[in-house]
């Protein structure tokens, strides 16, 4: 059945439940297409044989009560998967085979999903274009030589190219929402504490969250419902009653108050983005929502704050890669020499740069000037959101300041690369949920996204708003299969 790959996750689930398609047929369809899509370099590790075996097992004893019955799915290579290589796209973990499973992926398998493979990403999720991976750049199916965004670039590329019906990513400063925006897909970063961080290769622990990346809003609701759970193995996991996001999905947003933050109208913002945002406001009004101008005065300080906080946490998290207990090792003259050579050869340039930034801001004499300062500004940024959410139910912004760029365009200028995350980073600093939905095309024909930011644990509300807007936007992208080989 050639149209299997065109089905959304929800459609695939209902077709499998109605026995119109078997898990084997659907797995075969995605395996087949993935094999013909090597040019995109979206996979780090393929587990196709095992997936087909599991699909047959499912078909011989199907359980249609599962939320993801026999659904094949590739996941970001940042989630530890038992007995399947997990590398975080780093040389230092290039031979690492976990003996345990991350909670989020375990939740997927518990609901019947089947692992298709591990998807490429920026090294340790540090990057906005998937150009920092040890396993090479990922290419977007949108156009030749175009980056898919990052860090969940392999996930976005595989999803947009229809190599997987849905996928999961992680988002520390925009790593789900920015690539979703670049590839015309839906990406949701849940509230900090919603999805367990257990078994996810850590980058910046106070910011990291896993979330769904899907073809539409309904699929995001379904996948979030499966992913989110309270987990005693993550000390910051929050124990709250999780809604049934899919069941409660509704297009009734009449009377909802939506804030438009004036500080997101940044200098040099293109007219296309400006228009996209205006259209978004119009769609919301058409749905009966009320538009309210709001102010988040510390917005411009979010990125510099992030580039102190995230590297500081990363330098501490990545101290564990020392060539002793696991991973890659370079021999040295003595223990210290071995550490230094291992880390120098095992980490890529961007990761080393961030470890150095983090070490510097935490070092004696600089801690107060940088790290403590950043923590204080982080408070001001969170207070901004708290104040605005007294007046509105959600906030609408563009997802990114531009559409996707070409490979190599920004890789030599770290600051210009960092500016990509200008609209997504504040959300992580404040721990809030945010969703990016495809909202239009720029004049080059590349997708652009709009972001809806919600109150803590108010995912249902932003899903509902996104669901209503999706209908009005009616986003279409004509995917040309230029990358496929037979």
């Amino acid at each position, binding site marked *: 059945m050639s149209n299997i790959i065109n089905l959304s996750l929800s459609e695939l689930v209902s077709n499998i439940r109605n026995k119109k398609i078997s898990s084997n047929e659907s797995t075969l369809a995605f395996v087949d297409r993935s094999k013909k899509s090597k040019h995109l370099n979206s996979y780090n590790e393929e587990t196709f044989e095992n997936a087909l075996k599991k699909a047959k097992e499912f078909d011989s004893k199907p359980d249609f009560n599962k939320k993801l019955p026999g659904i094949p799915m590739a996941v970001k290579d940042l989630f530890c998967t038992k007995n399947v290589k997990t590398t975080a796209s780093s040389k230092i973990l290039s*031979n*690492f*085979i976990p*003996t345990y499973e991350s909670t989020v992926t375990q939740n997927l398998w518990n609901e019947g999903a089947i692992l298709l493979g591990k998807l490429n990403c920026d090294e340790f999720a540090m990057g906005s274009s998937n150009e920092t991976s040890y396993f090479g750049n990922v290419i977007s199916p949108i156009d030749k030589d175009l980056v898919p965004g990052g860090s969940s670039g392999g996930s976005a590329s595989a999803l947009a190219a229809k190599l997987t019906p849905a996928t999961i990513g992680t988002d520390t400063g925009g790593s789900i929402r920015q690539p979703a925006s670049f590839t015309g897909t839906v990406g949701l970063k849940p509230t*900090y*504490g919603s999805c367990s961080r257990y078994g996810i290769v850590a980058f910046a622990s*106070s910011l990291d969250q896993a979330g769904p990346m899907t073809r539409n809003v309904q699929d995001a609701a379904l996948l979030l419902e499966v992913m989110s759970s309270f987990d*005693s193995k993550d*000390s*910051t996991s*929050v124990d709250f009653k999780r809604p049934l996001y899919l069941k409660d999905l509704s297009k009734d947003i009449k009377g909802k108050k939506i804030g438009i933050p004036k500080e997101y109208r940044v200098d040099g913002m293109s007219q296309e983005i400006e228009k996209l945002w205006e259209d978004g406001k119009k769609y919301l009004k058409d749905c009966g929502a009320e538009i309210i101008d709001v102010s988040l005065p*510390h917005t411009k*300080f979010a990125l*510099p*704050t992030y*580039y*102190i906080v995230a590297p500081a946490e990363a330098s501490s998290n990545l*101290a564990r890669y020392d060539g*002793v*207990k*696991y*991973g*890659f*090792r370079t*021999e*040295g*003259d*003595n*223990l*210290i*020499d*071995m550490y*230094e050579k291992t*880390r*120098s050869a095992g*980490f890529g340039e961007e990761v*080393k*740069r961030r*470890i*150095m*930034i983090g*070490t*510097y801001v935490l*070092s004696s004499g600089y801690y107060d*000037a*940088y790290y*403590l*300062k*950043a*923590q*204080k*500004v*982080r*408070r*001001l940024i*969170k207070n901004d959101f708290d104040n605005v959410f007294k007046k509105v139910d959600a906030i609408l912004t563009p997802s990114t300041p531009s559409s996707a760029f070409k490979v190599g365009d920004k890789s030599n200028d*770290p*600051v210009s690369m960092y500016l990509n995350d200008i609209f997504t980073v504040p959300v992580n600093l*404040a*721990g809030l949920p945010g969703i990016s939905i495809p909202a239009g095309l720029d004049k080059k024909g590349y997708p652009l996204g709009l972001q809806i930011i919600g109150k803590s644990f108010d995912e249902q509300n932003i899903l509902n708003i996104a669901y209503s807007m999706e209908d009005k936007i009616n986003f279409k992208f004509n995917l040309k299969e230029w990358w496929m080989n037979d």
Partner: protein
Amino acid sequence: MSIDLKTVKHISKLSRISLDEEKAKKLETDLNSIFKWIEQLNELKTENVEPLSSIAETKLRLRKDEIKSKNIREEILKNSPEENKDFFVVPKVVE
């Protein structure tokens, strides 16, 4: 506040990442441009602001101190770079 080559080498020591001269110079340039951009935080007065270290500001949960994983020595050692059934192996530390 600019970062000189000596400071870059000091940070590299603290980070346990060896650097050759060329990489150190490249990092000096990169770090200076990044920190110049970060300096804009100094526009803000923050004397009376409480630092925010995590969004999960609630008290960490307590749990019973009990053993949940048993006999996993093999699993723990499975990924060690130098193979050995009983220990992690490192270069000689004591003469």
